């Protein structure tokens, strides 16, 4: 039986490797004197609610889950803090791809076209790019058709499958444009999902940030501080922790910052994506 006072993290099981990752972190934290445990959720909404219910001390949140938590906290008069993030969570962009041989040259050319996106709740493949296009004057569903590739809703686009399907739809000519995170533009090119020269980037969104470790006010300050110190102390030159960093896709941990969530926040404001969830989760938390 585990120690009752363990610092408990919540994470979403978007892939089986998540267990190996957090088992590894648990071992690292415990080697360094921080009693640690973790709970896996099947979707971010359940994790956010569990966080407000006090079932976990810290959450490994998607950017959307971070904003959900931030908005619920605001409704309840509480505070959230982003503790740490990966170096690879900073300054991402999304791209709108079109076929190289097509005539589309600028965002305005998407008027009347079919645009493939990822899952409904994917910040990078759906919400941020659609808001970006809307900033250019084209309202999704009114000025252009949106084709969703909804794989694993609730996982906020962590699963790559939706974006790959969107890319394939673009190649087949089923859609006129496809939205995806910039890292998938490279990945799909290297794995030949998008053969060399078959597509081009119509536009990039402005840079934004991705996941962070989120705590609420009232989290055990000593444990939060120790957690942060231990993460920031992880070195890629340490062979014991390097496999964990490789699995989690980073070279070093960075302090949390919240300046990179503006684009997604604007998208949520525009589309009302999380309004209902925030409303009901706040109400349930109060009750």
């Amino acid at each position, binding site marked *: 039986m585990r120690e009752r006072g363990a610092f408990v993290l919540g994470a979403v099981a978007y892939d089986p490797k998540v267990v190996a990752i957090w088992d590894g972190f648990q071992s690292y934290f415990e080697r360094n004197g921080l009693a640690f445990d973790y709970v896996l959720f099947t979707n971010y909404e359940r994790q956010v609610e569990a966080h407000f219910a006090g079932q976990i001390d810290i959450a490994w949140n998607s950017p959307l889950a971070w904003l959900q938590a931030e908005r619920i906290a605001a409704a309840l008069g509480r505070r959230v803090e982003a503790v740490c993030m990966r*170096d690879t969570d900073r300054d991402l962009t999304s791209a709108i791809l079109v076929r190289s041989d097509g005539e589309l040259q600028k965002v305005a050319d998407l008027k009347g076209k079919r645009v493939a996106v990822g899952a409904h709740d994917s910040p990078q493949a759906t919400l941020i790019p659609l808001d970006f296009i809307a900033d250019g004057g084209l309202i999704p569903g009114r000025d252009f058709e949106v084709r969703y590739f909804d794989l694993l809703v609730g996982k906020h686009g962590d699963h790559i499958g939706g974006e790959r399907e969107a890319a394939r739809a673009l190649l087949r000519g089923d859609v006129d444009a496809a939205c995806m995170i*910039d890292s998938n533009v490279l990945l799909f090119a*290297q794995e030949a999902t998008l053969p*060399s020269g078959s597509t081009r980037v119509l536009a990039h969104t402005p840079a934004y940030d991705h996941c962070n470790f989120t705590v609420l006010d009232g989290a055990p300050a000593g444990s939060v501080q120790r957690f942060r110190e231990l993460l920031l102390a992880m070195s890629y030159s340490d*062979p014991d922790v390097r496999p964990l960093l490789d699995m989690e896709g980073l070279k070093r941990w960075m302090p949390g910052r919240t300046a990179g969530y503006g684009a997604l926040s604007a998208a949520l404001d525009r589309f009302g994506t999380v309004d209902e969830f925030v409303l009901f989760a706040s109400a349930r938390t109060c009750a």
Partner: protein
Amino acid sequence: MRLDLGDLGFDEGAHLLVKRASRQLSLGEEMHVTGNAPELFTHLRVWCRSEGSAFRLESGRGGDASAAIIRSAAESDRWAGAESCGGARGSEPAAVVEQPPRTWGLAARGATVEVGAPEYGFTLVDKTEVWSAQAPRFYAQGAAAQWDPQTAIPWDAPCDVPDDVEDAIVQIMTYLIENETAALMVPSRFIAQLHPHFREVMQVLALQAADEARHIEIFTRRALLKRDKLGLSTSGGQASLKTLIEEPDYAVASFLLSVLGEGTFLNLLRFIEMHASDPITAAVARFAAQDEARHVAFGLAHIGEHLERNPAARSRLAAGVRRRSDALRHTAGLNAEVFDALIILAAGSWEHAAIRRGFQRVMQLTRDMDEGRQKRLARLGFDQREAMELSGLHTRNFM
């Protein structure tokens, strides 16, 4: 530093050029990358992020875009503390280390190994126990001496053998197959336990297993040349072989199998070759003996070096023979059918004089086997008394 990628894209291998160039940067130094491949800077930005390198898009002179990247310490961090795992050439004195760490794993000897690799469960990790400086030479010889069972044996040669003698040959082949199966399994078991750092030993053992596979094939094929069924397998013979394949100590198993067992088989195979009345039987025995001679020579080299480095092991080897003899005390050893079959083979007919001659030849064979074992034991430094004792205790099943 500047790097122009021209029209080479990241979907065509451009990352290799960026990697190569960035290795020449000192930490914190900037490199300016230009190029005109489609989406180059999208790809480069992502690549830099995944490598932990800083990326900044800049507008170059004349309107051409370029990107400044700063190499991260990640790659050098990964290889910090990496170690060279011995030398690639087994003939060089320092190439093979005394006790290679299990974390070197399957890395080729002489490679540079990242720290943090998983620890393998190899149990044979002590050079004193497993290494032979002659392993590279034996491997080269063994590799050069591989023969094709289809073409080496004159399968179409005339084979006019009396029925009784043919039956005897089938019984002998049945026995040989069983024994060669043991001789295949013993090295195979130890290959899986051996640290691959001792590469040439692993290769020699692999060739031995391959040799035995061929022997099993040609003995089976000879047995089925005129018959549809094989002969008898006795529980005594199997009990003897079981003690051999279950011997957990590599040096003891090598001693029992190669020095004593295969050494004894050399006499047996030459006996079969000499007295075979058909060229096919003679050929299968000859080709098998040729390989067995190499196995015996390697066993002698390995055990000889082992005893040189660790003279105390001599008593362990002797104890292995005595232990096996004790375990087999209540079994018959060589089955009577094989013994009788050897007499019939050597006799060639049922004439009284021929049977007498065959019997005498088999008696002479057992004396030759004993003498051969004693000679090999003496070569390994056992004194005459102990050599006689140990040879006498060797299994009556020959292998």
